[in-house]
């Protein structure tokens, strides 16, 4: 089994501390914050600053070239949710220089995410435009989790009209499990799920009972 695709590699790093499922549903009790998600313990935010990539913590210092390559790749936006960058979503796992080649590691959200190729191509283009010889590697391990979406990314999603994912929820394991989702427009917690699956694999469809607006919810995975 030495043969391996040069595109699919298994990353050797461990996930950042604190991003594993906790197995607990962190619901707000009655009288919790109207903002819903604001009131939740935000695991990944505790271990990473909004502007840095999770894997960046493993590299104490980036060289100047590396830094500039990282910035170019990090600015690439998600083709299906152009309000957020791939760094915001935590799908850009790192950028390192391999000699003169800038190697960007990207992970898919869902295995079958049709945006993966578009994202990889956009990263390649961005690196080339920044003056680098690019190489994009797809990593699938450790598996992406919505907990890797940065605090800034969550806020951008909300501003764009998409409710950010509940943190480390285990409610997906329960039949008819209810996840408390705050309306991204008015903040009301009086929301109802219309459809488990939405316009993309990563979203579900909800409706706000207070302002009556339908909205997308970024599913917790």
């Amino acid at each position, binding site marked *: 089994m030495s043969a*391996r695709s040069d595109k699919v590699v298994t990353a050797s790093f461990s996930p950042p501390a604190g991003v594993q499922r906790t197995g607990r549903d962190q619901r707000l009790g009655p009288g919790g914050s109207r903002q819903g998600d604001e009131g939740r313990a935000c695991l990944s935010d505790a271990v990473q600053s909004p502007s840095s990539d999770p894997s960046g913590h493993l590299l104490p210092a980036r060289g100047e070239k590396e830094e500039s390559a990282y910035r170019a790749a990090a600015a690439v936006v998600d083709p299906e949710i152009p309000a957020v960058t791939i760094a915001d979503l935590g799908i850009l796992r790192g950028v390192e220089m391999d000699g003169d080649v800038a190697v960007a590691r990207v992970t898919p959200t869902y295995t079958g995410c049709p945006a993966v190729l578009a994202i990889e191509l956009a990263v390649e283009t961005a690196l080339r435009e920044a003056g680098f010889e690019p190489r994009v590697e797809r990593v699938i391990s450790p*598996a992406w989790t919505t907990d890797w979406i940065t605090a800034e990314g969550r806020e951008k999603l909300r501003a764009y009209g998409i409710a950010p994912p509940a943190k480390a929820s285990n409610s997906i394991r329960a039949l008819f499990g209810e996840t408390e989702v705050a309306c991204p427009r008015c903040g009301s917690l009086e929301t109802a799920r219309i459809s488990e699956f939405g316009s993309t*694999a990563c979203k579900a469809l909800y409706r706000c009972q207070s302002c009556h607006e339908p909205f997308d919810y970024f599913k917790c995975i």
Partner: protein
Amino acid sequence: MAAASSISRETLTAFLLRLADDHLVLGHRLSEWCGHAPMLEEDLAMPNMALDLIGQARSLYQYAGEVEGKGRDEDQLAYMRREREYVNCLMAERQNGDFAHTMLRQFYFAAFMQPLWQAMMTSTDERLAGIAAKAEKEVAYHIRHAGEWVVRLGDGTEESTRRMKAAVEALAPYVNELFESDEVSRAVAEAGIAPDPTTLRPAFDAIVGPVFAEAGLEWVETPYGQTGGRQGRHGEALGFLLAELQYMQRTYPGMTW
């Protein structure tokens, strides 16, 4: 990788193709609902689940092609193998039937795969462990979605109950094949790559049991079981499915766009 020393390429390829074929064939079946679902929400849900399955199939075919080492890529494995070379379980290829039949089939398959993916997350084969860690989270949604429909329809109206009971009857002969063991599955289990399917039955029952109880459904013991998919012996339905799936590459071999 550790797995390489204890299992032949042929055996690992055979195992990977079984899994990949299950996912491609069932994913294709689900995608047939696109535009025909009983409601818009399900018209979104079923293609989304199909996308998960086909994405997982791609990961598995890519890996199978590399392990096999004969230069076949994912497209050749999916589009250029004949019916008798397909080794999916018979449940996956069954025609969709009505919505109750489709949801119950999806629920059964997800209840079979979830414990399997979960076990493979600690596989001695790193590549499979990586694929499993992603797929396990995805299939949890399938269990929830399909399981909720089994409850709604089973414990719904007279008509929906009748249809869900008919689905239980119709699918009963196809359940046992999922848990069959043979020399391939035993070799894979001995190498620590994936558990033998026979060991997954209690986990399957633990998922299905409570849902059936809530849905008011009785488990049907089948007097006979359908088998043969893992050896390439299929029902009539698969040939038609492959004819549609493979049409483009058969007509214009090597075509890309």
